[in-house]
């Protein structure tokens, strides 16, 4: 596709990179569909969030510097994750504030870094062509919702899809219990919180649960599956890109 609007550096995030490459490809195709050129720098690793949230500030700063060097050449940086985008947008300027070589560059990059649905609505105003006959509910992941203020964007996008209805689920903005390293440090508490979320999702009557952060979605999908639930879980990138009929998160390939 001819690029007219600029070049987007796609930050896949560790979890999408490792667990669900489909989300990365869907993200890329949506950005292209909106008229941008996509590049996926292969030096990308982690955004440093695990270190930042574990109190290892010096380590997170080192990882952040790398990220800035790799992604600052692009017009925009887009990530299919609210928490990783918030890390760059909100926390990088704080983490790198006292590093003279990086402070300003981190601020510049922060202002050009977007979570996917934010980018597709606030910047790109994408037109969507996919069609389904499905009833979905949206889980507002905490960082995207509270740090980036993402609430209307994913719903706007989902409503642009023919045949897709969005049903609000009780406590859609409540944490699912994932919490990054929290889910392995305090697995029993994490599971309890996830169970609460799964119950609310089931009660909503939706066929699919959609969200913007793979960590939360893996947590909810894994919990639903253990409960024997039939609710399918998909990343919003997949739904918007017309891939919602593909096997859902945690489901076998055919």
């Amino acid at each position, binding site marked *: 596709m001819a690029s007219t609007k600029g070049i987007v550096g796609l930050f*896949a995030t*560790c979890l*999408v*990179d*490792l*667990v*669900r*490459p*489909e*989300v*990365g*490809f869907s993200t890329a195709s949506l950005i292209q569909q909106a008229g941008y050129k996509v590049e*996926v720098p*292969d*030096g*990308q*690793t*982690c955004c440093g969030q695990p*270190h*930042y*949230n*574990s*109190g290892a*500030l010096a*380590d997170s700063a080192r*990882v952040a510097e*790398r990220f800035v060097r790799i992604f600052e050449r692009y017009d925009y940086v887009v990530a299919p994750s609210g928490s990783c985008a918030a890390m760059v947008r909100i926390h990088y300027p704080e983490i790198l504030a006292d590093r003279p070589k990086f402070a300003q560059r981190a601020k510049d990059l922060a202002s050009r870094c977007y979570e996917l649905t934010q980018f597709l609505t606030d910047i790109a105003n994408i037109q969507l062509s996919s069609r389904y006959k499905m009833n979905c509910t949206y889980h507002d992941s*905490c960082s995207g919702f*509270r*740090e980036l203020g993402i609430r209307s964007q994913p719903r706007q996008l989902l409503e642009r899809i023919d045949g897709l209805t969005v049903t609000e689920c009780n406590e859609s903005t*409540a*944490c699912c*219990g994932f*919490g*990054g*390293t*929290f*889910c*392995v*440090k*305090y*697995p*029993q*508490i*994490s599971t*309890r*919180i*996830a*169970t609460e979320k799964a119950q609310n999702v089931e009660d909503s009557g939706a066929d699919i649960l959609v969200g913007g952060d793979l960590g939360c979605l*893996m947590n909810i*999908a*894994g*919990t639903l*599956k*253990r409960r024997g639930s039939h609710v399918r879980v998909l990343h919003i990138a997949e739904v918007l890109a017309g891939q919602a009929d593909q*096997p859902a998160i*945690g*489901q*076998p*390939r055919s």
Partner: protein
Amino acid sequence: MEVTSAHFKSRSKVALLNEELQAALRKSRGGFVDKRKLAVDELADFENLRDRAVAIKNQVLSNLDRYLEQYEKSVTDTGGHVHWASTPEQAVEIILDICRKVDARCVTKGKSMIGEEMSLNDALEGQGIEVVETDLGEYIIQLAKESPSHIIAPAIHKTRNQITELFHEHHAKYGLTEKVEEVATIVNEARTVLREQFVKADVGITGANFLLADSGSSVLVTNEGNGDLTSTLPKVHIVTASIEKLIPSIDDLSVFLRILARSATGQEMSSYTSIYGGSASAEGMDDTREYHVVMLDNGRSKMLEGEFWEMLRCIRCGACMNHCPVYQSIGGHAYGWVYPGPMGSVWTPLLVGLQNAANLPNACTMNGRCEEVCPVRIPLPKLLRSLRNQIFERGLIDRKSRLGLWAWKMLSVCPPMYRLVMNSTSFVLNRLGRRSGSIRRLPFGSGWTEGRDFPAPTGGATFVSQWKSRSSD
């Protein structure tokens, strides 16, 4: 109070398996959240009030020495006494001393978290003084010989059945032998028992929600009116308070009253709002009455100097714990000291030492809902993260986590190695989960798969590698 925060992990596991606790938590969970939302949505000015409350508290905290001196002078001028205590032990000594001087045999108490910091009940009982908690929740847990599990609803971990049994066991001595099962009859029975105690008490001890610097008054909000009977019937009234409760004057009070009850219980106002002062302030008052304020520091003035000063804005509404998924899963006792939930996870390590409570700041998903609902906009996630930083710097995290973080950092700054490890992990986990799409028992990640499946990587190779090979085709 004994600090058991170091055992947070094991205590939280026990809490998750405690059926009665879980039943009590399930029952209360939605109530606080829904009621707060309704009350807040109805008040168009709520966000402005929050801003004003923040500004007032910040103004006081940045001039705290001046306000404390003004407050002391105002209390003294109105015939009261202010006693300064650096430590809980000093505060206890001061209170025991006041009780000894009037030969107190019986003390009634309103709810006071500062009293909990001092383990005041144990100290009084150790001196042979009978202590009667008069807040219904506090009374229930006193009978059960437990500590509060919530800062405004101390017995929230108890089910109605448990309360019925407790009353049945303890009230027989008053001739009340019938089991009370309905809320109204439970409340009535407590009222009957407590009335007698109010009358016979020699000293009444209450907490304070706010202290007014210009008038030397203390402000107490309750829903049961027990604070008034506790403070006014005995000849001696002792207020247990801490230095951050100060606000400049009664003009500032309405701002706080309007956000406190809404944030706490979703009420527009608490049922009772009482303002107390020394007896010289009212003409014709009995001048043999005593009014004492015991002002506890317990590490707070040190907090004021550092990066955690904003925590001192806290007005103890409990909204953070009402909206905390961790608190709502395990209740308050697992936190192991006086204050539970998000605010407790900041207070506790700062007041009892990080080494004694290093689990608390980590036991948080960083979901940020506490900050969203905090009426005085305390940046709780930021403060918890700062504590995590101190925990990390001081080597208080476990070896496994430290090693994991180190390894992840090394991979994160070395892309070829990262790619190799991620691709191999993707390959192996993909094979493990090929049949069902998920892994039921994850090697090295049994915590995750104990209660949920782990969605297996779908690709067999990472996204970045797949993208690269597709692009070069």
